[in-house]
């Protein structure tokens, strides 16, 4: 999982202001040398030496606002650049202000792009950033992208432009293929991290797929992390085995589903020092039972394992082999493993120190009961649906949630897909788990009320915002009236990210949220009856937000134009998908603040007002 790249999800960090909304003081680059008196320059150098101990971007943003001198010093010493919305600022502006950047994090498309709501080709191309950075950041070591489009050409350019390049992390990105990966493997001789997480590689025909694993240099590598479970293509296993053997620093390895248990055993033998292991298919590739014995000894030898994932085609008879490491595991990802509760329970019962658990809803309420009894230290739980459709059977319910709330009191983050829920269970969780920072409940049937009382789910979510004082991220579902949103507006002062779907009765609902949630930064709404007048209620706040997304609501062009006119630095994008004939109707709205004005790479289906 992504505990390592915690900056990707800002739920843990308080505040989280990125490139702060501040007037451009200029003088960042050019005011460096000649214009400043010598004595001041000495002070600045002292300041720079002090400021380099500041790592938190929030602190740095604050420091940069003190005065021009501090602004310059901070700009010189910022090593880690975080851009929460790649269109909020132009690459050139960023590279001109910050001259000494070693690591850059860029986020692109809105999150609803993951659910096919943003048409292909919308934007978030990395190439424009790369063109700006390549000449001025020769010491760049790390690139981390989320929901951006990066082409093979870009990967090639990275490999050739940054001789010290160490870390490439791509999360939910698209646009590249094994061709680009081969170039990275070949040319980046100091590569330490190559993490490909939930990316969508370009489709390649069988004969086009490049065996990129074989392209790593023959010498000892400095690889510490190699994650490629999302890369569907086959590769030369012997090459991987040899690569692992000559990478003594390797700590994290997550392989794709082509790797069988026999192969996994060989990998583990080469790298007993692994801490994070993605197990691939977790099925035997051959006939016969001798694989089982050896597997147990493999896990026995891997004394450092704290995180297991994979299990893509799991054969349950081999699961007992992992019991030996379960006691040390802090993180277990079974979210691709189609296992029954009976098969999961023995594993769960061994995992006494688990902090993060991802699983499919096949675990069932009784499996969650086992979790609540065994995993007392659990901080994060995610229950995904095996059958992600509205009218599927659903194997977990309010009973499982209630059990978890009673056993796992230290819970901080939960994502729970179910078909049935009650207010009582949600209220119980709000009281039993006061440390909740992230609460995401997805009742898959739209507008579904409390299973027992038949009432809306207003009271449950109301209790969450009331009782969970640290809550910063909330996703709501089920039958919800304006009352639920009123609760959120009234009590959810720390909420930064809010996802609303099929909720509310009237404009009041959105108004409560926009007027009440003073800390709101990211708001995603779909299929809710909010119209232009509700949209206007947020005009006082939109500059403080990273973005607002609304689809299938009741917005019209006139209302959106109105907002655009009132807020000149807000980019109002109307995305059409060709289904509506009414030109006045706004099907998808994406609004975000920007220093640059409308972007010049918008495709034809995007209209910027």
């Amino acid at each position: 999982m992504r505990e390592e790249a915690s900056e990707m999800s800002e739920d843990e960090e308080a505040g989280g202001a990125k490139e702060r909304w501040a007037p451009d003081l200029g003088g960042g680059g050019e005011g460096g040398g000649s214009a400043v008196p010598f004595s001041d320059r000495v002070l600045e150098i002292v300041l720079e030496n002090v400021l380099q101990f500041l790592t938190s971007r929030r602190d740095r943003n604050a420091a940069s606002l003190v005065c021009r001198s501090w602004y310059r010093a901070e700009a010189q010493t910022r090593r880690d650049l975080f851009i929460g919305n790649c269109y909020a600022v132009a690459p050139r502006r960023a590279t001109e202000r910050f001259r000494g950047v070693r690591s850059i994090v860029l986020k692109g498309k809105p999150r609803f792009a993951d659910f096919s709501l943003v048409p292909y080709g919308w934007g978030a191309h990395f190439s424009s950033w790369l063109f700006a950075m390549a000449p001025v950041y020769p010491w760049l070591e790390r690139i981390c992208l989320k929901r951006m489009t990066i082409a093979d050409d870009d990967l090639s350019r990275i490999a050739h432009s940054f001789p010290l390049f160490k870390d490439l992390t791509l999360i939910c990105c698209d646009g590249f293929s094994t061709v680009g990966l081969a170039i990275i493997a070949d040319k980046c001789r100091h590569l330490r991290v190559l993490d490909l997480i939930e990316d969508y590689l370009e489709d390649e025909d069988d004969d086009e797929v490049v065996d990129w694993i074989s392209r790593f240099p023959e010498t000892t590598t400095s690889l510490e992390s190699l994650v490629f479970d999302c890369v569907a293509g086959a590769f030369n296993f012997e090459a991987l085995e040899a690569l692992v053997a000559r990478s003594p620093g390797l700590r994290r390895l997550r392989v794709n589903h082509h790797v069988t248990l026999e192969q996994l055993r060989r990998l583990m033998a080469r790298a007993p020092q692994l801490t994070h292991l993605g197990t691939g298919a977790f099925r035997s590739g051959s006939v016969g039972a001798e694989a089982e014995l050896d597997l147990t000894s493999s896990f026995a030898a891997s004394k450092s394992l704290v995180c297991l994932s994979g299990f893509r085609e799991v054969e349950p008879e081999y699961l007992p082999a992992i019991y030996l490491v379960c006691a040390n595991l802090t993180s277990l990802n079974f979210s691709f493993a189609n296992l029954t509760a009976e098969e999961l329970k023995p594993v769960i019962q061994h995992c006494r120190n688990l902090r993060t658990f991802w699983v499919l809803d096949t675990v069932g309420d009784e499996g969650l009961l086992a979790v609540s009894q065994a995993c007392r230290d659990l901080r994060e739980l995610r229950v995904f649906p095996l059958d992600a459709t509205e009218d599927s059977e659903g194997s977990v319910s309010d009973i499982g949630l209630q059990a978890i709330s009673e056993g796992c009191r230290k819970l901080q983050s939960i994502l729970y897909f179910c078909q049935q829920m009650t207010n009582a269970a949600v209220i119980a969780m709000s009281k039993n788990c006061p440390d909740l920072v992230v609460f995401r409940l997805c009742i898959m049937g739209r507008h579904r009320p409390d299973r027992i009382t038949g009432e809306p789910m207003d009271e449950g979510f109301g209790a969450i915002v009331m009782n969970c004082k640290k809550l910063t991220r909330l996703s709501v579902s089920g039958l919800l009236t304006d009352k639920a949103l009123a609760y959120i507006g009234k009590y959810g002062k720390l909420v930064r990210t809010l996802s609303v779907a099929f909720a509310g009765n009237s404009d009041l609902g959105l108004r409560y949220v926009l007027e009440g949630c003073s800390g709101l930064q990211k708001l995603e709404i779909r299929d809710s009856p909010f119209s232009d007048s509700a949209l206007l209620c947020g005009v006082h706040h939109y500059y403080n937000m990273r973005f607002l997304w609304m689809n299938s609501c009741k917005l019209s062009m006139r209302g959106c134009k109105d907002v655009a006119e009132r807020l000149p630095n807000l980019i109002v994008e109307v995305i059409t998908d060709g289904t509506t004939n009414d030109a006045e109707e706004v099907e998808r709205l994406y609004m975000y603040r920007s220093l640059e004005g409308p972007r010049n790479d918008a495709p034809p289906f995007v209209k910027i007002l």
Partner: protein
Amino acid sequence: MEQGFRKGQGKCPQLLDLIRNHGDWRGKEKRVVKNGVEVEEEEEEEEEEEEEEKLELRLGPPGKEEYWVAERKEKREEPSLLSLSKVAKSNGSIPCFGSKRGFLQDFQQQQQQQQSHERKGSGPPTAHASASASGKAAGANNSSQRRTAAAPIVGWPPVRSFRKNLASTSKPCVESQNRRSENESEKKGLFVKINMDGIPIGRKVDLKAYDSYEKLSQAVDELFRDLLAAQSDPLATGTAEVKEKQVITGLLDGSGEYTLVYEDEEGDRMLVGDVPWNMFVSTVKRLRVLRTSDLSASFLRKVSRKRAANEC
């Protein structure tokens, strides 16, 4: 068959109840007046009333009954559990069931829709199925008909595309399956659904795994014991020691708190244990574990009479 219909059985009952409500309204109304408070108890009483309602004499022309029922339905939807009408009424702009058109015509349409919903097993209909459809009064007919089609919504539920179709991709690959079927004899399990009163999630049992009623009863006990304990005493999960879980006994003879019944191909409910095991396995379609107290006395009497007849 008359069985108490548990209130807590999930979303489907609300739709099913409306369909079965043809003759129930008079009886239900009486009950509401009697009890005063229990509007929510409607579902339970209706089931039991159904049998008696059919025999009652009524005044008025035959067709009038449906008209009257539809009217009641309108009123009923005020506190109803149907989420659509709730949203619709406060919103005002979205047409709800039965407004503006003739009651009879609308009721029939509604009935058809709900029946097709029941068949399709889809969730409560939503007016927001497509933004362009909702809010247009002219499309009132269209939107309610669109609901019967139960169009899949883009991006809902919100899971990323590689998490879809997990049921098919995460199974062991074909080669290993073939290998296994060579090693073991061709055994196709006979899985039937089993639901227990008060527990929202049903389970599945493989009847081929058992050869007698006793074994089945034992399996059912083991299956639901944990869940039952968790539900009846939530505090049990908090303790480190394993709580003494109550064994579920007497499923077959009516002596326990719960009784095992099954539904055959015709949908009739029968007590488990009457017929020889093999015959049972060939006709059973679904199992239920119901509270013995909910089974009506007449049902149990009829069954025990049949039993006695078989034993003689």
